[in-house]
Protein backbone atom coordinates (compact mmCIF):
# COMPACT_ATOMS: atom_id res chain seq x y z
CA UNK A 1 0.00 0.00 0.00
CA UNK A 2 1.36 3.38 -1.03
CA UNK A 3 -0.09 6.65 0.12
CA UNK A 4 0.11 9.71 -2.17
CA UNK A 5 -0.52 13.00 -0.40
CA UNK A 6 -0.87 16.06 -2.60
CA UNK A 7 -1.65 19.69 -1.95
CA UNK A 8 -2.51 22.44 -4.41
CA UNK A 9 0.28 24.81 -5.35
CA UNK A 10 -0.19 28.39 -4.10
CA UNK A 11 -2.05 30.25 -6.84
CA UNK A 12 -0.17 32.70 -9.09
CA UNK A 13 -3.35 33.74 -10.86
CA UNK A 14 -4.43 37.37 -10.41
CA UNK A 15 -7.88 38.30 -11.67
CA UNK A 16 -9.13 41.78 -12.54
CA UNK A 17 -12.07 43.26 -10.65
CA UNK A 18 -14.34 42.38 -13.58
CA UNK A 19 -13.07 38.79 -13.73
CA UNK A 20 -13.54 38.36 -9.96
CA UNK A 21 -17.07 39.60 -10.39
CA UNK A 22 -17.77 37.09 -13.16
CA UNK A 23 -16.38 34.27 -11.02
CA UNK A 24 -18.51 35.34 -8.04
CA UNK A 25 -21.63 35.05 -10.16
CA UNK A 26 -22.53 38.73 -10.54
CA UNK A 27 -23.25 38.06 -14.23
CA UNK A 28 -25.16 34.87 -13.59
CA UNK A 29 -24.47 31.28 -12.65
CA UNK A 30 -23.62 30.28 -16.23
CA UNK A 31 -20.86 32.88 -16.51
CA UNK A 32 -19.58 31.80 -13.08
CA UNK A 33 -19.43 28.16 -14.19
CA UNK A 34 -17.56 29.10 -17.38
CA UNK A 35 -15.18 31.22 -15.32
CA UNK A 36 -14.46 28.27 -12.97
CA UNK A 37 -13.44 26.21 -15.99
CA UNK A 38 -11.24 28.98 -17.43
CA UNK A 39 -9.53 29.71 -14.09
CA UNK A 40 -9.21 26.01 -13.27
CA UNK A 41 -7.27 25.55 -16.48
CA UNK A 42 -5.25 28.72 -15.85
CA UNK A 43 -4.11 27.31 -12.48
CA UNK A 44 -2.84 24.09 -14.07
CA UNK A 45 -1.07 26.09 -16.78
CA UNK A 46 0.46 28.34 -14.07
CA UNK A 47 -0.88 31.41 -15.88
CA UNK A 48 -0.24 34.68 -14.00
CA UNK A 49 -3.44 36.22 -15.44
CA UNK A 50 -6.15 35.80 -18.03
CA UNK A 51 -6.13 37.43 -21.47
CA UNK A 52 -9.07 39.03 -23.27
CA UNK A 53 -9.98 37.14 -26.47
CA UNK A 54 -11.80 38.68 -29.44
CA UNK A 55 -13.28 35.54 -31.02
CA UNK A 56 -13.78 31.86 -30.33
CA UNK A 57 -14.02 28.73 -32.45
CA UNK A 58 -15.77 25.85 -30.69
CA UNK A 59 -14.78 22.23 -31.31
CA UNK A 60 -17.09 20.77 -28.66
CA UNK A 61 -20.14 20.59 -30.96
CA UNK A 62 -19.10 17.19 -32.35
CA UNK A 63 -20.89 14.45 -30.41
CA UNK A 64 -18.72 12.01 -28.41
CA UNK A 65 -21.22 11.22 -25.64
CA UNK A 66 -23.91 12.53 -23.33
CA UNK A 67 -21.48 14.68 -21.32
CA UNK A 68 -21.08 17.14 -24.21
CA UNK A 69 -24.82 17.71 -24.37
CA UNK A 70 -25.12 17.94 -20.57
CA UNK A 71 -22.36 20.57 -20.52
CA UNK A 72 -23.81 22.83 -23.23
CA UNK A 73 -27.34 22.53 -21.80
CA UNK A 74 -26.16 23.26 -18.24
CA UNK A 75 -24.45 26.46 -19.41
CA UNK A 76 -27.60 27.46 -21.26
CA UNK A 77 -29.91 26.59 -18.36
CA UNK A 78 -27.75 28.76 -16.10
CA UNK A 79 -28.25 31.70 -18.46
CA UNK A 80 -24.91 31.78 -20.24
CA UNK A 81 -24.46 33.23 -23.72
CA UNK A 82 -21.38 33.90 -25.83
CA UNK A 83 -20.07 37.48 -25.54
CA UNK A 84 -17.63 37.43 -28.49
CA UNK A 85 -18.11 36.30 -32.13
CA UNK A 86 -18.10 32.50 -31.97
CA UNK A 87 -17.90 30.08 -34.88
CA UNK A 88 -18.76 26.38 -34.66
CA UNK A 89 -16.69 23.45 -35.88
CA UNK A 90 -18.20 20.51 -37.72
CA UNK A 91 -21.02 18.60 -36.08
CA UNK A 92 -21.99 14.94 -36.45
CA UNK A 93 -24.61 15.57 -39.18
CA UNK A 94 -24.97 17.17 -42.57
CA UNK A 95 -28.08 19.26 -41.91
CA UNK A 96 -28.50 20.09 -45.61
CA UNK A 97 -28.24 16.44 -46.68
CA UNK A 98 -29.78 14.70 -43.64
CA UNK A 99 -29.84 11.23 -45.18
CA UNK A 100 -26.10 11.26 -45.83
CA UNK A 101 -25.18 10.05 -42.34
CA UNK A 102 -26.04 6.38 -41.96
CA UNK A 103 -28.35 5.15 -39.20
CA UNK A 104 -28.11 1.39 -39.48
CA UNK A 105 -26.98 0.66 -35.91
CA UNK A 106 -28.18 1.88 -32.48
CA UNK A 107 -24.86 3.74 -32.00
CA UNK A 108 -25.33 5.50 -35.37
CA UNK A 109 -28.91 6.41 -34.43
CA UNK A 110 -27.66 7.87 -31.11
CA UNK A 111 -25.11 10.00 -32.97
CA UNK A 112 -27.82 11.26 -35.32
CA UNK A 113 -30.35 12.22 -32.66
CA UNK A 114 -27.96 13.39 -29.95
CA UNK A 115 -25.57 14.96 -32.44
CA UNK A 116 -28.42 17.14 -33.73
CA UNK A 117 -29.40 18.06 -30.16
CA UNK A 118 -25.80 19.05 -29.43
CA UNK A 119 -25.62 21.27 -32.53
CA UNK A 120 -28.90 22.94 -31.42
CA UNK A 121 -27.55 23.44 -27.89
CA UNK A 122 -24.56 25.42 -29.19
CA UNK A 123 -26.80 27.60 -31.35
CA UNK A 124 -28.90 28.32 -28.25
CA UNK A 125 -25.72 29.65 -26.58
CA UNK A 126 -25.46 32.25 -29.37
CA UNK A 127 -22.76 30.73 -31.58
CA UNK A 128 -22.92 31.02 -35.39
CA UNK A 129 -23.96 27.96 -37.41
CA UNK A 130 -20.75 27.90 -39.48
CA UNK A 131 -20.19 24.13 -38.96
CA UNK A 132 -16.70 24.20 -40.42
CA UNK A 133 -13.20 23.16 -39.35
CA UNK A 134 -11.86 26.01 -41.52
CA UNK A 135 -13.40 29.11 -39.87
CA UNK A 136 -10.55 31.16 -41.34
CA UNK A 137 -12.20 30.75 -44.76
CA UNK A 138 -15.40 32.32 -43.41
CA UNK A 139 -15.51 36.05 -42.76
CA UNK A 140 -13.96 35.81 -39.28
CA UNK A 141 -10.22 36.27 -39.65
CA UNK A 142 -8.36 37.59 -36.63
CA UNK A 143 -5.46 39.92 -37.34
CA UNK A 144 -1.76 39.63 -36.52
CA UNK A 145 -1.23 39.66 -32.76
CA UNK A 146 -4.92 39.36 -31.87
CA UNK A 147 -5.67 36.98 -28.96
CA UNK A 148 -8.43 34.45 -29.71
CA UNK A 149 -9.66 31.13 -28.28
CA UNK A 150 -9.79 28.74 -31.19
CA UNK A 151 -10.09 25.00 -30.73
CA UNK A 152 -9.71 22.16 -33.32
CA UNK A 153 -6.14 21.32 -34.14
CA UNK A 154 -5.98 22.55 -37.76
CA UNK A 155 -7.80 25.80 -36.95
CA UNK A 156 -5.34 26.41 -34.09
CA UNK A 157 -2.33 25.79 -36.34
CA UNK A 158 -3.72 28.06 -39.08
CA UNK A 159 -4.67 30.91 -36.71
CA UNK A 160 -1.27 30.90 -35.02
CA UNK A 161 0.91 30.29 -38.04
CA UNK A 162 -0.76 31.76 -41.11
CA UNK A 163 -2.76 34.60 -39.55
CA UNK A 164 -0.35 35.38 -36.69
CA UNK A 165 -3.26 35.47 -34.24
CA UNK A 166 -2.65 33.90 -30.82
CA UNK A 167 -4.44 30.84 -29.47
CA UNK A 168 -3.25 27.96 -27.33
CA UNK A 169 -4.08 24.24 -27.59
CA UNK A 170 -7.06 23.78 -25.27
CA UNK A 171 -9.09 20.75 -24.33
CA UNK A 172 -12.73 20.55 -25.38
CA UNK A 173 -15.08 22.57 -23.09
CA UNK A 174 -12.61 25.43 -22.62
CA UNK A 175 -13.52 26.89 -26.02
CA UNK A 176 -17.16 27.66 -25.17
CA UNK A 177 -16.18 28.86 -21.67
CA UNK A 178 -13.77 31.34 -23.27
CA UNK A 179 -16.58 32.46 -25.61
CA UNK A 180 -18.89 33.03 -22.62
CA UNK A 181 -16.34 34.90 -20.48
CA UNK A 182 -14.27 36.53 -23.25
CA UNK A 183 -11.18 35.28 -21.41
CA UNK A 184 -8.53 32.57 -21.78
CA UNK A 185 -5.52 31.63 -19.63
CA UNK A 186 -2.49 33.77 -20.51
CA UNK A 187 -0.21 30.81 -21.16
CA UNK A 188 1.34 28.78 -23.95
CA UNK A 189 1.08 30.29 -27.44
CA UNK A 190 -0.50 33.48 -26.11
CA UNK A 191 3.00 34.41 -24.85
CA UNK A 192 5.91 35.59 -27.04
CA UNK A 193 8.34 32.99 -25.70
CA UNK A 194 6.25 29.97 -26.71
CA UNK A 195 5.85 31.20 -30.31
CA UNK A 196 9.54 31.12 -31.17
CA UNK A 197 10.75 28.46 -33.56
CA UNK A 198 12.57 25.49 -31.99
CA UNK A 199 13.54 23.27 -34.94
CA UNK A 200 14.64 24.30 -38.45
CA UNK A 201 13.23 22.18 -41.30
CA UNK A 202 15.43 22.58 -44.37
CA UNK A 203 13.49 21.90 -47.60
CA UNK A 204 15.96 23.51 -50.02
CA UNK A 205 16.91 20.10 -51.50
CA UNK A 206 13.34 19.48 -52.73
CA UNK A 207 12.64 20.73 -56.28
CA UNK A 208 10.30 23.71 -56.54
CA UNK A 209 8.03 21.74 -58.87
CA UNK A 210 7.37 19.22 -56.05
CA UNK A 211 7.04 21.95 -53.40
CA UNK A 212 4.48 23.70 -55.62
CA UNK A 213 2.41 20.51 -56.04
CA UNK A 214 -0.54 19.64 -53.84
CA UNK A 215 1.15 16.75 -51.99
CA UNK A 216 3.97 18.87 -50.51
CA UNK A 217 1.70 20.31 -47.80
CA UNK A 218 0.30 17.05 -46.43
CA UNK A 219 3.59 15.16 -46.71
CA UNK A 220 5.82 17.86 -45.18
CA UNK A 221 3.26 18.30 -42.41
CA UNK A 222 3.03 14.59 -41.69
CA UNK A 223 6.83 14.13 -41.66
CA UNK A 224 7.52 17.16 -39.49
CA UNK A 225 4.66 16.47 -37.05
CA UNK A 226 5.93 12.97 -36.42
CA UNK A 227 9.49 14.24 -35.86
CA UNK A 228 8.98 17.44 -33.81
CA UNK A 229 6.00 16.45 -31.62
CA UNK A 230 4.61 19.67 -30.16
CA UNK A 231 7.66 21.87 -30.81
CA UNK A 232 7.48 24.87 -33.21
CA UNK A 233 9.13 24.06 -36.58
CA UNK A 234 10.62 26.70 -38.92
CA UNK A 235 10.42 25.71 -42.61
CA UNK A 236 13.18 27.04 -44.86
CA UNK A 237 13.16 26.76 -48.66
CA UNK A 238 9.43 26.80 -49.42
CA UNK A 239 8.51 29.03 -52.40
CA UNK A 240 7.24 32.54 -51.64
CA UNK A 241 4.21 31.58 -53.74
CA UNK A 242 3.15 28.85 -51.22
CA UNK A 243 -0.63 29.26 -51.02
CA UNK A 244 -2.93 29.40 -48.02
CA UNK A 245 -4.44 26.09 -49.13
CA UNK A 246 -0.98 24.48 -49.06
CA UNK A 247 -0.31 25.93 -45.60
CA UNK A 248 -3.72 24.69 -44.45
CA UNK A 249 -2.89 21.14 -45.59
CA UNK A 250 0.57 21.31 -44.01
CA UNK A 251 -0.72 22.53 -40.64
CA UNK A 252 -3.55 20.00 -40.53
CA UNK A 253 -1.20 17.07 -41.18
CA UNK A 254 1.42 18.33 -38.69
CA UNK A 255 -1.24 18.76 -36.00
CA UNK A 256 -2.46 15.19 -36.62
CA UNK A 257 0.80 13.25 -36.72
CA UNK A 258 2.36 15.39 -33.96
CA UNK A 259 1.02 18.09 -31.69
CA UNK A 260 2.11 21.03 -33.85
CA UNK A 261 0.00 24.08 -32.94
CA UNK A 262 2.27 26.62 -34.61
CA UNK A 263 4.82 26.63 -37.43
CA UNK A 264 6.79 29.25 -39.33
CA UNK A 265 7.52 29.34 -43.07
CA UNK A 266 10.36 31.76 -43.69
CA UNK A 267 9.36 34.43 -46.18
CA UNK A 268 5.70 33.39 -46.10
CA UNK A 269 4.11 33.39 -42.61
CA UNK A 270 3.83 36.75 -40.81
CA UNK A 271 6.12 36.11 -37.84
CA UNK A 272 8.94 34.69 -39.99
CA UNK A 273 10.41 37.33 -42.33
CA UNK A 274 13.79 35.65 -41.63
CA UNK A 275 15.02 32.50 -39.85
CA UNK A 276 16.46 34.71 -37.11
CA UNK A 277 13.12 36.43 -36.55
CA UNK A 278 11.33 33.08 -36.37
CA UNK A 279 13.81 31.67 -33.85
CA UNK A 280 13.74 34.76 -31.65
CA UNK A 281 16.39 36.99 -30.12
CA UNK A 282 17.82 34.85 -27.33
CA UNK A 283 18.50 31.74 -29.36
CA UNK A 284 21.97 30.49 -28.42
CA UNK A 285 24.03 28.14 -30.56
CA UNK A 286 22.84 26.31 -33.67
CA UNK A 287 19.25 25.09 -33.54
CA UNK A 288 18.49 21.48 -34.36
CA UNK A 289 17.96 21.12 -38.12
CA UNK A 290 16.00 18.47 -39.98
CA UNK A 291 16.83 18.19 -43.69
CA UNK A 292 14.14 16.73 -45.91
CA UNK A 293 14.45 15.38 -49.45
CA UNK A 294 12.04 14.13 -52.11
CA UNK A 295 12.97 10.59 -50.99
CA UNK A 296 11.56 11.44 -47.54
CA UNK A 297 8.34 12.68 -49.16
CA UNK A 298 7.98 9.44 -51.13
CA UNK A 299 8.57 7.43 -47.93
CA UNK A 300 5.93 9.50 -46.12
CA UNK A 301 3.43 8.83 -48.89
CA UNK A 302 4.15 5.11 -48.57
CA UNK A 303 3.64 5.27 -44.79
CA UNK A 304 0.32 7.08 -45.08
CA UNK A 305 -0.84 4.73 -47.82
CA UNK A 306 -2.15 1.63 -46.06
CA UNK A 307 -3.23 -0.22 -49.19
CA UNK A 308 -0.86 -1.00 -52.04
CA UNK A 309 -3.37 -2.60 -54.38
CA UNK A 310 -5.52 -1.30 -57.20
CA UNK A 311 -8.93 -1.58 -55.51
CA UNK A 312 -10.72 1.75 -55.03
CA UNK A 313 -14.19 2.33 -53.52
CA UNK A 314 -14.31 6.04 -52.73
CA UNK A 315 -12.44 9.35 -52.94
CA UNK A 316 -12.61 11.98 -50.20
CA UNK A 317 -11.55 15.59 -50.81
CA UNK A 318 -11.85 18.55 -48.45
CA UNK A 319 -10.23 17.74 -45.07
CA UNK A 320 -9.87 20.38 -43.72
CA UNK A 321 -12.91 21.84 -45.45
CA UNK A 322 -12.29 22.87 -49.06
CA UNK A 323 -11.83 26.49 -50.07
CA UNK A 324 -13.58 27.96 -53.11
CA UNK A 325 -10.29 27.58 -55.01
CA UNK A 326 -10.16 23.88 -54.15
CA UNK A 327 -13.78 23.35 -55.21
CA UNK A 328 -12.99 25.16 -58.46
CA UNK A 329 -9.90 22.99 -58.97
CA UNK A 330 -11.93 19.78 -58.64
CA UNK A 331 -14.57 21.16 -61.01
CA UNK A 332 -11.85 22.07 -63.53
CA UNK A 333 -10.34 18.58 -63.35
CA UNK A 334 -13.76 17.07 -64.01
CA UNK A 335 -14.75 19.49 -66.79
CA UNK A 336 -13.26 17.51 -69.64
CA UNK A 337 -12.51 13.87 -70.04
CA UNK A 338 -14.16 10.61 -69.13
CA UNK A 339 -16.96 10.21 -66.59
CA UNK A 340 -16.34 8.93 -63.07
CA UNK A 341 -16.34 5.15 -62.79
CA UNK A 342 -19.71 3.88 -61.57
CA UNK A 343 -18.29 1.94 -58.60
CA UNK A 344 -16.36 4.85 -57.05
CA UNK A 345 -18.09 7.39 -54.77
CA UNK A 346 -16.47 10.83 -54.78
CA UNK A 347 -17.07 13.18 -51.83
CA UNK A 348 -15.98 16.77 -51.25
CA UNK A 349 -16.50 18.39 -47.82
CA UNK A 350 -16.86 22.15 -47.34
CA UNK A 351 -18.41 24.75 -45.08
CA UNK A 352 -21.72 26.42 -45.91
CA UNK A 353 -20.15 29.76 -46.80
CA UNK A 354 -17.93 28.07 -49.38
CA UNK A 355 -20.91 26.10 -50.69
CA UNK A 356 -22.82 29.34 -51.30
CA UNK A 357 -19.90 31.06 -53.01
CA UNK A 358 -18.96 28.04 -55.12
CA UNK A 359 -22.61 27.55 -56.12
CA UNK A 360 -22.87 31.16 -57.29
CA UNK A 361 -19.85 30.56 -59.52
CA UNK A 362 -21.40 27.41 -61.00
CA UNK A 363 -18.89 24.95 -59.53
CA UNK A 364 -21.39 23.03 -57.39
CA UNK A 365 -23.73 22.31 -60.30
CA UNK A 366 -20.72 21.12 -62.32
CA UNK A 367 -19.64 18.77 -59.52
CA UNK A 368 -23.14 17.38 -59.05
CA UNK A 369 -23.51 16.74 -62.77
CA UNK A 370 -20.24 14.82 -62.64
CA UNK A 371 -21.62 12.71 -59.77
CA UNK A 372 -19.70 14.18 -56.87
CA UNK A 373 -21.43 14.10 -53.46
CA UNK A 374 -21.26 17.45 -51.63
CA UNK A 375 -20.83 17.16 -47.84
CA UNK A 376 -21.42 20.16 -45.55
CA UNK A 377 -21.61 20.75 -41.77
CA UNK A 378 -19.60 17.63 -41.00
CA UNK A 379 -16.71 15.58 -42.41
CA UNK A 380 -16.38 12.11 -43.90
CA UNK A 381 -13.91 10.88 -41.26
CA UNK A 382 -15.85 11.85 -38.10
CA UNK A 383 -19.26 10.41 -38.85
CA UNK A 384 -20.57 7.37 -40.82
CA UNK A 385 -21.11 8.68 -44.34
CA UNK A 386 -19.10 6.24 -46.46
CA UNK A 387 -20.98 3.07 -47.34
CA UNK A 388 -20.53 0.01 -45.11
CA UNK A 389 -18.90 -1.83 -48.03
CA UNK A 390 -16.22 0.83 -48.62
CA UNK A 391 -12.78 -0.64 -47.94
CA UNK A 392 -10.24 1.47 -49.85
CA UNK A 393 -10.43 5.27 -50.03
CA UNK A 394 -8.20 7.76 -51.82
CA UNK A 395 -7.65 11.24 -50.39
CA UNK A 396 -5.38 14.23 -50.95
CA UNK A 397 -5.45 15.07 -47.22
CA UNK A 398 -2.71 14.02 -44.80
CA UNK A 399 -5.13 14.50 -41.91
CA UNK A 400 -7.82 12.28 -43.43
CA UNK A 401 -5.18 9.65 -44.27
CA UNK A 402 -3.87 9.74 -40.69
CA UNK A 403 -7.20 9.34 -38.90
CA UNK A 404 -9.47 7.34 -41.22
CA UNK A 405 -7.90 3.88 -40.79
CA UNK A 406 -8.62 3.96 -37.03
CA UNK A 407 -11.83 6.04 -37.11
CA UNK A 408 -13.50 4.27 -40.02
CA UNK A 409 -11.63 1.00 -40.42
CA UNK A 410 -10.83 1.70 -44.08
CA UNK A 411 -7.55 1.45 -45.99
CA UNK A 412 -6.17 4.69 -47.44
CA UNK A 413 -4.22 5.78 -50.51
CA UNK A 414 -2.80 9.32 -50.44
CA UNK A 415 -2.71 11.02 -53.84
CA UNK A 416 -2.67 14.43 -55.45
CA UNK A 417 -5.98 15.87 -56.67
CA UNK A 418 -5.02 14.89 -60.22
CA UNK A 419 -4.27 11.32 -59.11
CA UNK A 420 -7.54 11.14 -57.15
CA UNK A 421 -9.53 12.23 -60.22
CA UNK A 422 -7.64 9.92 -62.59
CA UNK A 423 -8.27 7.00 -60.21
CA UNK A 424 -11.96 7.83 -59.77
CA UNK A 425 -12.31 7.75 -63.57
CA UNK A 426 -10.36 4.54 -63.99
CA UNK A 427 -12.19 2.80 -61.15
CA UNK A 428 -8.85 1.71 -59.68
CA UNK A 429 -5.88 3.37 -58.01
CA UNK A 430 -3.68 5.13 -60.60
CA UNK A 431 -0.59 6.90 -59.28
CA UNK A 432 1.70 9.11 -61.36
CA UNK A 433 5.40 8.48 -60.62
CA UNK A 434 6.21 12.02 -61.79
CA UNK A 435 4.25 13.58 -58.89
CA UNK A 436 7.07 13.11 -56.41
CA UNK A 437 10.14 12.87 -58.65
Amino acid sequence: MTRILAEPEPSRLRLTVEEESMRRGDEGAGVAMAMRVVTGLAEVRRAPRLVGVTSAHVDGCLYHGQVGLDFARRLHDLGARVRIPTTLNVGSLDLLHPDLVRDATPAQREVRSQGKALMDAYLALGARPTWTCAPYIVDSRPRLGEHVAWAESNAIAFANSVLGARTDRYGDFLDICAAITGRAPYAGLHTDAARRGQVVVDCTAIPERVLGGDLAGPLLGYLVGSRVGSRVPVFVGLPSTTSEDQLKALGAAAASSGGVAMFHVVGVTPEAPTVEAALGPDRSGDPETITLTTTDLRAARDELTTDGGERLDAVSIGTPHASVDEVAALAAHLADGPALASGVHVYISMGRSVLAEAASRGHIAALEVAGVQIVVDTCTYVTPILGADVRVVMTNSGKWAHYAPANLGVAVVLGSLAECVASARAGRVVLDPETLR
Partner: protein
Amino acid sequence: MASMTGRALRPGSASGALLVLDEPLSFWGGSDLAGTIIDTHHPQHGQSFAGRVLAMRSGRGSSSSSYVLAEQLRRGTGPLAIVLAEPDAIIVLGALVAHELYGHSVPVVLVPPDELARLRTGDVVEVCA
Protein backbone atom coordinates in the same frame (compact mmCIF):
# COMPACT_ATOMS: atom_id res chain seq x y z
CA MET B 1 3.42 1.82 4.34
CA ALA B 2 5.27 3.77 1.64
CA SER B 3 4.28 7.33 0.99
CA MET B 4 5.01 10.06 -1.51
CA THR B 5 4.02 13.67 -1.80
CA GLY B 6 2.91 15.51 -4.89
CA ARG B 7 1.01 18.47 -6.25
CA ALA B 8 -2.77 18.35 -6.49
CA LEU B 9 -4.12 19.36 -9.91
CA ARG B 10 -7.65 18.30 -8.90
CA PRO B 11 -8.71 17.61 -5.31
CA GLY B 12 -10.32 14.38 -4.15
CA SER B 13 -9.52 11.10 -2.50
CA ALA B 14 -9.59 7.54 -3.76
CA SER B 15 -7.90 4.21 -3.24
CA GLY B 16 -7.55 1.23 -5.49
CA ALA B 17 -5.26 -0.99 -7.52
CA LEU B 18 -2.86 0.69 -9.92
CA LEU B 19 -2.57 0.43 -13.68
CA VAL B 20 0.81 1.92 -14.60
CA LEU B 21 1.25 2.79 -18.29
CA ASP B 22 4.62 2.50 -20.03
CA GLU B 23 3.64 5.22 -22.52
CA PRO B 24 1.39 8.30 -22.43
CA LEU B 25 -2.21 7.72 -23.52
CA SER B 26 -4.64 9.88 -25.51
CA PHE B 27 -8.12 9.16 -24.10
CA TRP B 28 -9.70 10.14 -27.47
CA GLY B 29 -8.79 7.47 -29.99
CA GLY B 30 -6.74 5.66 -27.33
CA SER B 31 -9.52 4.39 -25.04
CA ASP B 32 -13.16 3.44 -25.46
CA LEU B 33 -16.16 4.48 -23.39
CA ALA B 34 -15.84 1.31 -21.28
CA GLY B 35 -12.37 2.42 -20.11
CA THR B 36 -10.39 -0.06 -22.22
CA ILE B 37 -7.18 0.97 -23.99
CA ILE B 38 -7.86 0.53 -27.72
CA ASP B 39 -4.75 2.23 -29.17
CA THR B 40 -3.16 -0.72 -30.96
CA HIS B 41 0.30 0.89 -30.72
CA HIS B 42 0.07 1.24 -26.93
CA PRO B 43 2.02 -1.27 -24.79
CA GLN B 44 -1.00 -1.74 -22.48
CA HIS B 45 -3.44 -2.22 -25.39
CA GLY B 46 -6.46 -4.22 -24.27
CA GLN B 47 -6.17 -3.41 -20.54
CA SER B 48 -8.84 -1.49 -18.67
CA PHE B 49 -8.41 1.44 -16.30
CA ALA B 50 -12.07 1.44 -15.22
CA GLY B 51 -12.18 1.30 -11.41
CA ARG B 52 -8.40 1.47 -11.07
CA VAL B 53 -5.90 4.22 -10.30
CA LEU B 54 -4.26 5.23 -13.58
CA ALA B 55 -0.59 6.28 -13.52
CA MET B 56 1.35 7.54 -16.54
CA ARG B 57 4.07 10.07 -17.27
CA SER B 58 1.76 12.43 -19.17
CA GLY B 59 -1.26 12.62 -21.40
CA ARG B 60 -0.91 12.98 -25.14
CA GLY B 61 -2.76 13.74 -28.33
CA SER B 62 -6.21 15.05 -29.02
CA SER B 63 -7.89 17.91 -27.22
CA SER B 64 -11.08 15.82 -27.32
CA SER B 65 -9.48 13.66 -24.61
CA SER B 66 -11.18 15.98 -22.08
CA TYR B 67 -14.54 15.02 -23.55
CA VAL B 68 -13.84 11.27 -23.57
CA LEU B 69 -12.51 11.26 -19.98
CA ALA B 70 -15.52 13.24 -18.75
CA GLU B 71 -17.87 10.82 -20.54
CA GLN B 72 -16.10 7.81 -18.97
CA LEU B 73 -16.44 9.43 -15.53
CA ARG B 74 -20.15 10.01 -16.20
CA ARG B 75 -20.59 6.34 -17.08
CA GLY B 76 -18.53 5.13 -14.13
CA THR B 77 -15.94 3.59 -16.45
CA GLY B 78 -13.19 6.13 -15.79
CA PRO B 79 -10.17 5.81 -13.50
CA LEU B 80 -10.59 6.29 -9.71
CA ALA B 81 -7.63 8.68 -9.66
CA ILE B 82 -4.94 9.82 -12.09
CA VAL B 83 -1.24 10.09 -11.19
CA LEU B 84 1.00 12.01 -13.60
CA ALA B 85 4.59 13.28 -13.71
CA GLU B 86 3.83 16.20 -16.05
CA PRO B 87 0.91 18.63 -15.73
CA ASP B 88 -1.78 18.01 -18.33
CA ALA B 89 -4.44 20.65 -18.83
CA ILE B 90 -6.56 18.44 -21.10
CA ILE B 91 -6.92 15.68 -18.48
CA VAL B 92 -7.62 18.23 -15.74
CA LEU B 93 -10.33 19.81 -17.89
CA GLY B 94 -12.10 16.45 -18.25
CA ALA B 95 -12.01 15.92 -14.48
CA LEU B 96 -13.15 19.50 -13.84
CA VAL B 97 -16.17 19.16 -16.13
CA ALA B 98 -17.22 15.83 -14.56
CA HIS B 99 -17.12 17.60 -11.20
CA GLU B 100 -19.13 20.60 -12.45
CA LEU B 101 -21.83 18.45 -14.02
CA TYR B 102 -22.08 15.41 -11.80
CA GLY B 103 -20.23 16.36 -8.61
CA HIS B 104 -17.87 13.52 -9.40
CA SER B 105 -14.39 14.25 -7.92
CA VAL B 106 -11.50 12.40 -9.48
CA PRO B 107 -8.21 13.37 -7.90
CA VAL B 108 -5.46 14.24 -10.41
CA VAL B 109 -2.02 14.45 -8.83
CA LEU B 110 1.47 15.21 -9.98
CA VAL B 111 4.44 13.33 -8.49
CA PRO B 112 8.15 13.56 -9.36
CA PRO B 113 9.14 11.25 -12.26
CA ASP B 114 11.41 9.10 -10.05
CA GLU B 115 8.53 8.57 -7.60
CA LEU B 116 6.20 7.64 -10.45
CA ALA B 117 8.79 5.06 -11.55
CA ARG B 118 8.40 3.30 -8.18
CA LEU B 119 4.72 2.57 -8.79
CA ARG B 120 3.81 -0.91 -10.03
CA THR B 121 0.68 -2.23 -11.70
CA GLY B 122 -1.44 -4.12 -9.16
CA ASP B 123 -0.11 -2.21 -6.12
CA VAL B 124 -2.81 -0.61 -4.02
CA VAL B 125 -2.51 3.14 -3.56
CA GLU B 126 -4.45 5.68 -1.57
CA VAL B 127 -4.58 9.17 -3.07
CA CYS B 128 -5.46 12.19 -0.90
CA ALA B 129 -5.44 15.48 -2.74
